[in-house]
């Protein structure tokens, strides 16, 4: 692996960039691996990297039906934060945040993690109660998050409309200063390059058709578009397609896949310094390093794998943004795209062992997948390597849906009275 640095860049610039080598090879599958990871998004590639780096397991393949990073990794609005309500969630996402903090150096790939602050707007008494609960819980958990008055919120984000006459007036905000954004593609590429350098095979355009189990029920490998690949362990990290893959191992999942849309505006000079989210009006926004306003929307109402999404939802999202930031109506939408988010009944992820020997699953991240990337990857690698969950992901089992021990972030935030 050529080490990236200002010096290597300068050196290459002087010889016309002729010396750069490929960042990862396009591997063909071997007959057998210690671990096969299904899904080459940030989570899967990262898990392969940590398996190799922290657990010495390098005979690993990451297999994807398309190009690496082509799913939700490359389709999200790149928001990173950890100010979740429940201890389990806050600790998990804060673990990710700790890894984000050093990820560029760790991977020798600038993932452009920008700690510009994520501000969540409160629009009514219920929001205030809910966000104060977050702030206090986070504070006692050692997670950065603080309450701002609406004037402080405006000072932090000048385009904000804090007029009391707004349909949903801003009454305050919760700010996590350590939160922010990162360059999504770079995360996938950085992990791919670092994993490949440690011997991991990245196999693209190779659909996994089924997980194959032996006579004793344990996993023995995967059937793919390029034939059977033997594996001692299989980790499924396939986001919206997890249900389909797990079904082939005879496991039905508590998952539904919904279309989620996002959009960017034309690029403009810096105007928007942070990330702002409003759950009440269902929109979130930041400005990319290119100058585009990056805007996320809610999910459409029906399950879908079409990656399309409808016009009405986008209209409501744009209207919500323009209600909170009225200076933006004359900005223009440049492009809009859709992803597929896999959602569990309690809106928290499933990350752990599946009830089949040698099978592991990482799914159900909903809209939280990108921010969890290094954490989920790190904990998935741990769980696969040790055949038991790390304490941080131990609560995120499949079993919780039988016992009732749900981690219901959505219920805790969303009920109006």
């Amino acid at each position, binding site marked *: 692996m050529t080490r990236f640095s200002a010096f290597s860049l300068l050196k290459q610039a002087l010889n016309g960039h002729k010396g750069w080598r490929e960042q990862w090879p396009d591997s063909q599958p071997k007959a057998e691996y210690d671990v096969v990871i299904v899904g080459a998004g940030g989570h899967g590639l990262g898990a392969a990297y940590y398996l190799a780096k922290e657990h010495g397991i390098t005979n690993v393949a990451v297999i994807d039906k398309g190009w690496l990073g082509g799913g939700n990794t490359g389709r999200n609005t790149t928001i990173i934060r950890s100010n979740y309500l429940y201890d389990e969630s806050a600790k998990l996402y804060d673990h990710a945040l700790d890894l984000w903090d050093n990820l560029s150096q760790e991977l020798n790939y600038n993932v452009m993690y920008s700690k510009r602050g994520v501000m969540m707007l409160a629009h009514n008494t219920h929001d205030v109660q809910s966000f104060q609960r977050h702030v206090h819980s986070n504070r006692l958990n050692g997670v950065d998050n603080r309450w701002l008055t609406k004037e402080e919120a405006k000072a932090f984000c000048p385009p904000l409309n804090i007029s009391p006459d707004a349909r949903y007036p801003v009454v305050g905000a919760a700010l996590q200063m350590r939160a922010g954004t990162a360059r999504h593609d770079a995360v996938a590429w950085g992990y791919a390059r670092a994993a490949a350098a440690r011997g991991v095979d990245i196999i693209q355009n190779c659909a996994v058709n089924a997980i194959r189990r032996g006579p004793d029920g344990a996993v023995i490998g995967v059937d793919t578009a390029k034939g059977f690949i033997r594996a001692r362990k299989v980790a499924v990290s396939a986001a919206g*397609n997890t*249900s*389909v893959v797990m079904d082939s191992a005879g496991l*039905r*999942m*508590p*998952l*539904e*896949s919904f279309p989620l849309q996002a959009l960017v505006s034309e690029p403009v000079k810096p105007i928007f310094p942070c990330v702002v989210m409003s759950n009440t009006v269902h929109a979130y926004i930041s400005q990319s390093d290119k100058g585009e306003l990056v805007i996320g929307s809610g999910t459409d*109402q*029906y*399950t*879908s*794998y*079409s990656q*399309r999404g*409808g*016009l*009405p939802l986008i209209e409501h999202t744009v209207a919500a943004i323009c209600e909170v930031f009225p200076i933006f109506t004359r900005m223009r939408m440049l492009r809009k795209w859709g992803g597929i988010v*896999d959602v*569990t*009944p309690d809106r928290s992820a499933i990350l752990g062992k599946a009830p089949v020997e040698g099978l592991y699953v990482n799914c159900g991240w909903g809209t939280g997948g990108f921010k969890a990337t290094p954490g989920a990857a790190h904990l998935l690698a741990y769980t696969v390597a040790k055949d038991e969950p790390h304490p941080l992901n131990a609560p995120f089992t499949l079993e919780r*849906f*039988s*016992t009732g021990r749900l981690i219901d972030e959505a219920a805790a935030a969303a009920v109006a009275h």
Partner: protein
Amino acid sequence: MLLIHCPYCEDTLPELEFTYAGEAHIARPADPSALSDEEWRDYLFIRTNARGPHYERWRHVGCGRFFNALRDTVSDRFLMTYKAGLPRPPLPQETVE
């Protein structure tokens, strides 16, 4: 925005008149107390999440009725809709892409 045929109104109408109501043909068990925790979990939470033809429920604001539909979740195209209470129809032959 989808276009949906309401089997009660016998009219094909815009999605904005409809709400999605989850997977179809998951009947509430007659005697929930007789179920194990796992069986009850299956009823509550386990979903097919089909990639392709998916049996699902919608409700039409016009007539207020819940009804069933078979929709391809890859193309989002409705293959058929039918009234609530009718048995699950078989998959049409050439629906899978």
